[in-house]
């Protein structure tokens, strides 16, 4: 697609900076300006595992159709980092535009004739207009917002309003920021033909939508679910979950008079301890969770198996990053699917929830606690860096005030009073889920929790029959889980077809966009988005109803496909993997190419 044609509210803007220079607030301002103009927008951070001094990019996609996935095009590049200039220049799509700091001359060979290059003396203007060194660096970033406002026709009033809101407590900063913006804006107006053929245009006000990261949404979900204990060990990209939970707790869970806190957050010594704490707190009857990433889950594995076998509710949030090992901590993948499904030694299996955006992160965080307590088992919320750390536009979160936590089968003293005898691991109604009691309640409910072989009374056993009785009941419980987890969501094609796509989590956006493009190419596919493991009935029906099923996922080893093959019969020769695992969020082109190639069609991506 050429970028020279008039394109309104359909462009990709990429900003190349150095991390630690404060570009985040400038980029946030751009995002919000587009958002307030009613334009569907997403922002993706491409950052290094480093604190200061390495290259970092921020990619904004504005798209009037609401496509949220990453798109490999770059229409406008703002090249603020001399180190990566050459690479950034090369990345601009033909017909695109590049803005750079023209304070210092560029080498001549660093040029391209198929794009338009705009030089703006940003540093020079900053040095002339601002005194303090640190302010100059910050204002240089804000200044490119002004340049872009002119080039992309962003609404200046909206930007002013945003500045006012952001710095309401520091009016001095409003003036400085506004000055920088106007300097950039006026320079661009004077020297370039503004606006560009690709530009923004107000198309509403995005009422009903918000901008949020998945990590914030999960933190908020844990707050709303009534979690009181959070234990964690810091790890990218999950840290934002506990940061968010902490700040929401400070806002909503502190007694204004006494300062007493209705929560406890424990920064554990490692992930093993974090898992133990979560299990201990849930065992006593609090809702407790731990956010972590792949390496943390590896460490927690022994405890996860314990909680499975001893039947203790617990919520594990895995914001996935790139493995194996330390891998690339600041890149995204869906490569812990298999590990989480069967984490720990022995026969273990765990419910997994796959949110595909921050809105679902919120809902599913709450759901994870309900499921964990209902099923008395560890439940995993599998997010990833793309969902967790990037800025997503999603429908506003909603809350039903009538919601009450599902605490599952818990017997309190009143219940116990009516019983002859409490038996911890007895299935009384055939759903495979026994009753539990809470420490501190009643001696009649006392039992012994152990990871060693136990019988239905919780007593130690090495008796084969007694042992197997429990293990088999856990399978009955697994069947119950299938009926309780979030169902898969079907998006049928407008045309009858025997082709299907299965995807989950953050691959959703790429699939949505790809299906439209494939339809234009005459390839029609039904789409089922898996939202949980174990697979609910719709997944099996979908598998049966299609001749070819593309399984789209962000890992090398086709982990979801492997799970499907373990759970469903005779599907191996109908499943085709479309894999993306370079660490960047999956772009829609990957799905378009994968499907069309397999269908014998070559498309230019």
């Amino acid at each position: 697609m050429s970028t020279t044609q008039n394109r309104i509210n359909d462009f990709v803007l990429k900003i190349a900076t150095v991390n630690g220079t404060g570009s985040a607030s400038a980029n946030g301002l751009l995002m919000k300006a587009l958002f307030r103009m009613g334009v569907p927008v997403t922002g993706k951070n491409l950052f290094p595992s480093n604190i200061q001094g390495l290259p970092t990019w921020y990619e904004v996609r504005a798209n009037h159709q609401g496509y949220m996935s990453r798109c490999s095009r770059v229409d406008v590049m703002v090249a603020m980092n001399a180190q990566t200039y050459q690479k950034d220049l090369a990345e601009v799509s033909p017909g695109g535009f590049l803005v750079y700091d023209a304070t210092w001359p560029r080498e001549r060979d660093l040029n391209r004739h198929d794009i338009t290059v705009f030089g703006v003396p940003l540093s020079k203007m900053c040095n002339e207009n601002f005194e303090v060194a640190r302010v100059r660096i910050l204002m240089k970033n804000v200044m490119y917002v002004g340049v872009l406002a002119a080039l992309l026709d962003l609404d200046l009033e909206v930007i002013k309003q945003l500045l006012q809101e952001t710095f309401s407590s520091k009016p001095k900063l409003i003036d400085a920021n506004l000055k920088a913006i106007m300097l950039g804006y006026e320079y661009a107006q004077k020297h370039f033909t503004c606006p560009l053929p690709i530009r923004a245009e107000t198309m509403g006000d995005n009422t009903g939508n918000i901008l949020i990261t998945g990590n914030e949404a999960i933190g908020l979900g844990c707050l709303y679910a009534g979690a009181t204990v959070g234990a964690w060990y810091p790890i990218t990209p999950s840290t934002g979950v506990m940061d968010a939970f902490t700040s929401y707790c400070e806002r909503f869970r502190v007694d204004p008079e006494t300062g007493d806190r209705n929560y406890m957050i424990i920064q554990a010594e490692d992930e093993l301890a974090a898992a133990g704490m979560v299990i201990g707190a849930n065992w006593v009857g609090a809702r407790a969770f731990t956010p972590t990433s792949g390496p943390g889950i590896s460490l927690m594995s022994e405890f996860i198996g314990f909680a499975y076998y001893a039947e203790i509710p617990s919520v594990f949030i895995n914001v996935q990053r790139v493995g194996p090992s330390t891998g690339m901590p600041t890149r995204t993948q869906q490569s812990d699917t298999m590990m989480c499904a069967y984490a720990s030694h022995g026969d273990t299996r765990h419910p997994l929830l796959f949110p595909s955006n921050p809105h679902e992160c919120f809902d599913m965080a709450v759901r994870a606690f309900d499921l964990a307590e209902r099923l008395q088992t560890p439940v995993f919320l599998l997010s990833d860096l793309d969902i967790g750390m990037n800025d997503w536009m999603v429908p506003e979160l909603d809350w039903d005030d009538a919601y009450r936590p599902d605490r599952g089968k818990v017997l309190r003293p009143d219940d116990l009073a009516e019983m002859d005898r409490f038996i911890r691991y007895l299935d009384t109604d055939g759903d495979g889920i026994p009753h539990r009691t809470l420490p501190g309640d009643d001696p009649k409910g006392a039992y012994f929790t152990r990871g060693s072989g136990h019988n239905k009374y919780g007593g130690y056993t090495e008796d084969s029959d007694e042992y197997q009785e429990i293990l088999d009941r856990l399978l009955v419980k697994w069947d119950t889980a299938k009926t309780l987890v979030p169902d898969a969501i079907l998006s049928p094609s407008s045309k009858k077809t025997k082709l299907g796509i299965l995807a989950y989590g953050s691959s959703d956006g790429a699939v949505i966009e790809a299906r439209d493009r494939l339809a234009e190419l005459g390839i029609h596919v039904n789409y089922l988005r898996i939202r949980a493991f174990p697979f609910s009935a719709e997944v099996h029906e979908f598998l049966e109803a299609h001749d070819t099923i593309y399984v789209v996922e962000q890992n090398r080893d086709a982990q979801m496909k492997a799970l499907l093959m373990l759970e469903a019969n005779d599907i191996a020769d109908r499943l085709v993997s479309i894999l993306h695992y370079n660490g960047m969020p999956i772009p829609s082109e990957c799905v378009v190419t994968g499907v069309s190639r397999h269908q014998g069609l070559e498309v230019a991506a």
Partner: protein
Amino acid sequence: MTYLARPKIELPGQKTNAIGLTLRDYEGALSTLCAGCGHDSITAALVQALWEMSLRPEMLIKMSGIGCSSKTPAYFVHGAHGFNSVHGRMPSVATGALAANRDLVGLGVSGDGDSLSIGFGQFGHVIRRNVNMLYLIENNGVYGLTKGQFSASADAGSTSKKGEVNQMQNINAVATAISMGASFVGRGFSGDREQLVPLIKSAIAHPGCAVLDVISPCVTFNDHEGSTKSYAYTREHKLRATEADLIPPRAEIRASYYAGDTYPVRLHDGSTILLKKADPDYDPTRRNNALGYLERHRRHGEIVTGVLYIDQNVPDMHEQSRSTEAPLRDLPFETLSPGRDALAELQKGMK
């Protein structure tokens, strides 16, 4: 093997404690440990101490890791919930449990392998957080359950049953705990119940993480000549630095308690740990003094016992995190979830 319930025989006129329970009410299932194992004596001391303290069984949580020692929570207070966790990780589970309900009385039983090798990290951090619990190490110098390998607490120069000499320095649980900032550290011997019972009571009453290292001979793998954790060796080399007694809240503190080498440590709940110095040189309120004393006697192969360090004013985990008085797990949902309007308000900042 199945769960063996101990036959309950009610003797007429059996003594009851302040809440009307007999000693039997503080017992558990029959032990399956080797006859003569030190751990069983500690269990008996626990039963006695908890009964004397009139602890309500349901308020106790019995936590442990893995090992012969860690099996023992099944053998006392059948009316309390027990938690036999994974090897070396009892502290984290106890931490979470006590975070969720601060009214519970935490009692963790661990072994020297469980605490000083695989669980060394968690041992340190439960101390650092000063989680309000008794952390009892049943220390036999070996891994009993895996058949007698040296543990990290085995003294340099001591020998295994097969005659192998341990070359490595030992990790001394009490010195380590004191230097890591533990608020209560004591040592006892499974064979000295008279000393152990009040030690346990004092440790439970202490408002913070109380580490008790109890030498507990393994009759099967470490009770031979050449062992420094045998009954014979411990009896011969045991030295009392202090003696402790726990005086309940309403009891009168006589003036004589303040005299000379006897002094009371007043706890927040009004009870008093009465310490008597068996050795006038000893000062259990000063870390340096305690560590120096331990080191001097260690060099002579002596095992110092008693309350070795105490500071009842170190803030515990709940004070550190300023959590509310009521157990977190009992907070009504309405106070935890801010509701629909608050969510709408919050989201105004996300536009």
